[in-house]
């Protein structure tokens, strides 16, 4: 069944390894929705989260193909609905005068936070599912949005996962 799936890959954080991993996505023509990369608790190892819209065999084959890459320590896939998916966004907004109070109301409504307050522009931070983040950004569009930085989704499968199908915390 075609649905949103998370591919998680632990890999050495060298540019050539990232290059290979992203090259694989392109070469195998995978339907990528988002990409996120960040460090793990192990120095020198990064975690790559790729959201793809595909059926299960395609995701499983992608996992096997990732496992073949030199520099990849582990890879796994699961349907997004069987896990928790979160992304973070920073939005730079200009809201001056009486509109500033209106901005704070929106921020509060979305459980977002003002993380930088500058007379020229305010930076708002929000975290949640992709849909939540999008709706929050839309709500902020009633002000003047200057810039948006989204992290792309990271995901964890809920509950206990079989050891072989899990990307461990460190390796």
């Amino acid at each position, binding site marked *: 069944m075609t649905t949103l799936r998370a591919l998680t890959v632990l890999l*050495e954080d060298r540019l*050539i390894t990232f*290059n*290979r991993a992203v*090259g694989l996505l392109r*070469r195998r023509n995978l339907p990528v929705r988002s990409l996120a990369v960040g460090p793990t608790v192990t120095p020198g190892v990064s975690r790559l989260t790729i959201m793809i819209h595909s059926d299960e*065999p395609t995701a499983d*084959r992608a996992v*096997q*193909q990732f*496992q*073949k*890459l*030199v*520099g*990849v*320590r*582990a*890879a796994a896939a699961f349907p997004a609905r069987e896990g928790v998916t979160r992304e973070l966004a920073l939005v730079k907004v200009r809201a001056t005068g009486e509109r500033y109070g209106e901005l704070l109301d929106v921020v509060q409504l979305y459980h977002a936070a003002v993380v930088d307050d500058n007379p020229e522009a305010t930076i708002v931070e929000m975290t949640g599912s992709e849909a939540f983040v999008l709706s929050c950004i839309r709500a902020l569009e009633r002000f003047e949005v200057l810039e948006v930085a989204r992290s792309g989704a990271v995901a964890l499968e809920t509950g206990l996962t079989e050891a*072989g199908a899990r990307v461990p915390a460190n390796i």
Partner: protein
Amino acid sequence: MAEQLTGSQILCRALLDEGVDLMFGYPGGAIMPFYHALPEYPGLRHVLVRHEQAAAHAADGYARACGKPGVCVATSGPGATNLVTGIATAHMDNTPLVAITGQVPRAMIGRDAFQETDIIGITQPITKHSRLVEDVEELAEAVHEAFAVAREGRPGPVLLDVPKDVQNQKLAYTEAAPRAPEGRRQGLMGSPTPMAIVEASRLITRAQRPLIMAGHGVILSDAYDELRALAEHTGIPVITTLLGISAFPESHPLHLGMPGMHGEVHVNRAIQQADLIIGVGLRFDDRVTGNLAAFARGAKVIHIELDASEIGKNVPVAVGLVGDARDILRELLAVVERRDCGSWRGEIASFVRPRVDSFKGGLSPEEILGALEDASAGRCTVVSDVGQHQMWVAKLYRYQRPNTHITSGGLGTMGFAVPAAMGVALARPGESVWAISGGGGFPMKMEEGIPVKMAIFNNGYLGMVRQWQQFFHGRRYSATPIWSPDYLRLAEAYGIPAWRVERAEQVDEVLRAAQAHEGPALVEFLIEQEANVFPMIPPGASLSEPIESETVSV
């Protein structure tokens, strides 16, 4: 105190430690320190080619013939890019290959220096692994990693890019045993569960119309005896794919032939009628399956394959057995019940059609290859190029000994035969090696008088493309008629004897003479201009829709 060695000397030592005794290459600026060190290591024989692509093909042929990784060497920039087609050829056909390229000095990388190219970036999708060696400290380890990765699991090419200043860097070198590199691939070599083996064996027992399809994996894992034992134990007929040819003796009563686009009609019909296909070490390539939706609709598939990501990639699989073909065939043999497929084999025999004469003239590929079989007593290794002659060579010579048919299957690289045959000849000293090519793909690349016999099937066309034009483009022979040089005089320029054969009566005598000549020799066959390879499954069609003669128009 440890010896002070240069990077180049360390590179040579590491190659010797890996058991390398032969490499193919071409020197140039950024690889000169390596060539400077090379004469100090007489254990490393270097064959100078005339184009780097030939170095990669020769190393590929060498590796296919003896199983050891082939080594090719080139300089940075154009030297490295010239290797690309050869590396891609090895990648598609899973040949263990280590390509060593020089690179501009580290301080110049990224500045568009003279003869700088990002060869790691260029070859990334066609290598199993590649690495820029950033310091002499990591050089020996990088070499050992390269060989380990090239060899392990499903073999393939690895590229090592060594900057010129790293080749010149000095290091107090202490010999370290080659060790397995860290952090490598997880869970690649799974072994099938006993349950899966039992399930496969149950399917084999119950099948009414089973077939074995043997691919390159049988040759790579040296599983000839096991394949034959399974076939004889069960009476299941064996099909060999283009790269599986010579994995099973062709005189064996259970051997059916080659499937796919130019497979015999009875072979493809057997596939379409089968209720079970046991695929061993193959990847169900589109040239084998034809239209996937119509491929073997009634068959369940047992797929034995080293690479888990191949299982179910093209064809739905009932039982996937991941692992080495030889191990799995042994496990299967231990549990599969003895059976006989007499009536099914009788049915397949009734599918056999008389071969359609593809020839109006007297000098047919059947005759040439039959005569070659006689002249070589069926014992030579045949290395083919790509095109019509490749199909004739695949179908019309009866291969009896394992791994005696070598060709570029996956990539279909024209120009492969002659340089690859040099590698084969060097891997099998004393054996007879024939490179067979078409007039279009024959590049005259003889180096160091390696005793390869060369045959050219000259029909004055890029024949396979012309055949497609005949059937699918209304005989518009655009850019396919070719002019050929006078090969006899070209051979003379290289100092090798050559013959031109225009009539069938000449074939036997000429081939005997060429076979008897010590050292390289060349035979040109002037064959019918519009010769075709039959049967043929049109591209995108199913195996049930062969074109069998010129009278059928598509």
